């Protein structure tokens, strides 16, 4: 099964019964799989007129109680960002899959990229926090799609799956566990019936976790949801204090649970002195490079970012204290490296390519060797000011 199909199957296994989307390479197979599968499952597949409509339909479906998703690539994600912000503000769970291709603009439609990392984090206007995962195999596409739905419902927020063309179109064995083994976290629902008089407070956070239970349309709660700054009743409230409190909570409900959200994988890290940081398809090359470097006696490990956002600041910061050098390998010109450098407070080595072909393990190996030789020189922990070296992939 290829990655895109595994994504649709993961969503279906997670109970997603609403897909609204607009075709775009290299994500189209996800829509096609849904078009085939929804009719027999009693779900909804609708091909919308554009991505603006796709994400709006997904939010509407979510507000009516459905597990809902859309899938796209960079150009489509750009169009969805406005209503991604609406999803954040209305606290409507949904999953947005971005199978990245070479960008900016129309870029390389059929070839891979990993350059939507910052768009995923910061694309919509305003201060908000987002959750995003980056699978490196079709199996992981399946597993992480399930996780995306669970995280979306748990934190009452949109969640992104940032795949890439290589993984989307890669064919590998995918094991689909029996239904009862698929983790399912329930959306938090009001524990009380609709009030006979007065207003149900759809945005009153549970003090424990800052997440308000979500009443759906048609259940009798007479909710009001608005993208305007609102109070706990959901009513517009144009006050700076309410605004500050709301925006702060929307961020805090994710940031304060970062540890539960973040997923990382470490390879050969036990005795490592150098670390390669990578994700998605590039992490496959990085693992190979790390293995080869180990064979040459270089004490290097791999930190694979299974989740991209929230960024694992604490982990990277702590590694910054111990590691002699960081090498960031990614199919963009340094988006994750920027984050790593922010956390470690010094330059990292970068292995970058703007997209179109996978970064060859050889390129990453070259950087590892150079970094190992230069311990104590520019880019290493012991040097203070000189810039990290970039090796174009």
């Amino acid at each position, binding site marked *: 099964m290829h990655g895109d199909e595994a994504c649709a199957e993961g969503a279906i296994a997670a109970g997603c019964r*609403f897909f*609204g989307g607009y075709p775009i390479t290299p994500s189209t197979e996800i829509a096609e799989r849904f078009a085939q599968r*929804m*009719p*027999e499952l*009693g*779900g*909804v*597949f*609708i091909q*919308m*007129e*554009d991505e*603006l*409509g*796709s994400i*709006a*339909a*997904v*939010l*509407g*479906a*979510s*507000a*009516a*109680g*459905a597990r*809902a998703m859309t899938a796209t690539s960079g150009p489509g994600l750009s169009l969805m960002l*406005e*209503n991604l912000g*609406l999803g954040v503000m*209305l606290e409507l769970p949904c999953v947005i899959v971005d199978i990245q291709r070479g960008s900016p603009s129309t870029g390389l439609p059929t070839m891979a990229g990993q350059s939507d990392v910052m768009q995923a984090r910061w694309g919509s206007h305003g201060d908000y926090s987002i959750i995003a995962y980056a699978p490196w195999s079709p199996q992981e596409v399946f597993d992480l799609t399930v996780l995306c739905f669970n995280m979306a419902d748990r934190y009452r927020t949109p969640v992104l799956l940032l795949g890439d063309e290589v993984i989307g179109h890669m064919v590998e064995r995918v094991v689909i566990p029996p239904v009862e083994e698929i983790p399912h976290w329930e959306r938090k629902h009001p524990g009380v019936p609709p009030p006979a008089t007065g*207003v149900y407070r759809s945005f009153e956070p549970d003090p424990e976790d800052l997440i308000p239970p979500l009443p*759906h*349309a*048609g*259940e*009798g*709660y*007479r*909710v*009001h*949801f*608005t*993208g*305007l700054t609102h109070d706990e009743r959901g*009513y*517009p409230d144009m006050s700076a204090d309410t605004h500050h409190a709301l925006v702060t909570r929307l961020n805090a409900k994710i940031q304060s649970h970062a540890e539960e959200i973040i997923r990382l994988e470490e390879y050969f890290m036990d005795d490592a002195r150098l670390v390669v940081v990578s994700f998605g398809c590039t992490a496959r090359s990085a693992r190979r490079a790390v293995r080869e470097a180990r064979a040459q006696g270089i004490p290097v490990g791999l930190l694979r970012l299974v989740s991209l956002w929230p960024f694992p600041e604490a982990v990277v910061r702590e590694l910054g204290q111990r590691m002699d050098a960081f090498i960031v390998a990614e199919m963009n010109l340094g988006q994750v490296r920027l984050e790593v450098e922010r956390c470690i407070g010094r330059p990292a080595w970068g292995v970058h390519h703007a997209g179109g072909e996978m970064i060859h393990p050889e390129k990453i190996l070259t950087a590892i060797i150079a970094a190992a030789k230069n311990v104590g020189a520019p880019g290493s922990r012991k040097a203070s000011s000189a810039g990290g070296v970039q090796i174009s992939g």
Partner: protein
Amino acid sequence: MTQATVVDTHPLDTILRADRMPHIFCPGCSIGIVMRCYAQAVLESGIPLQQHVVVSGIGCTGRVAGYMDLDSYHTTHGRAIPFATGMKLANPNLMVTVFSGDGDLSAIGGNHLIHAARRNVDVKVICVNNFNYGMTGGQCGPTTPLGAVATTAPYGNPEQPFNLPYLLAAAGAGYVSRWTSLHVRQLKQDILHSFVRPGFAFIEVLSACPVGFGKSNNIPDGLEEMQLYRERCVLARGVPLENLSIDLRENRPIYVGNFIDRDLPAYKPVTRVG
């Protein structure tokens, strides 16, 4: 002198959010009248209130969602229709009404409007057409008549406006009508009728925005615009759709009525047995 009496209750108390009053609408604005017609239709529909949902975009008209004591969603500019589409398909028991402005629905949301009409998705669209962008202070939009003055067309609007019923009919809508904020009975009846017939419905309501459109185009008062509707509105019987364009500044008939009511299969998600 007669004294105003303060009453404790209002016939629409059960369906308006009294705790959100006073509303934001300017004196002489038509939106409140149209909202009342919708509220009345909802009450008379016989459909449990719990099943009614109102979805709005952004604009003065878009604020209506916030005043209805129903499940109500005030979304983003132009996206009310696709939001409503997703909602209706996810829960077909809901009666979903989109209540929004001419700019929201036909400018920034124009693509969604024509596609919803073509699909015949079962949402009811009430479009308050006040010939301008009221909320942002009277800019011109796709319904502003050629030559009319707006803050972004100080020398007169250089563009041809949409004739919305004609546009919607061409897009394949099964139900298209037009009333004005003066035609409260007809409008309420029409909304009620749209509730019982499955499929997409588009109801345009010509409305006064004395602040944004009227004052710069010699209709400075809401009441004056109502007077103008009374004098000029004509029930369109057999008038070709292409002749339904409006320019309040010209002394010619304003055609109102139900223009299209045809049975088309309402959009349903595809289903297949195993």
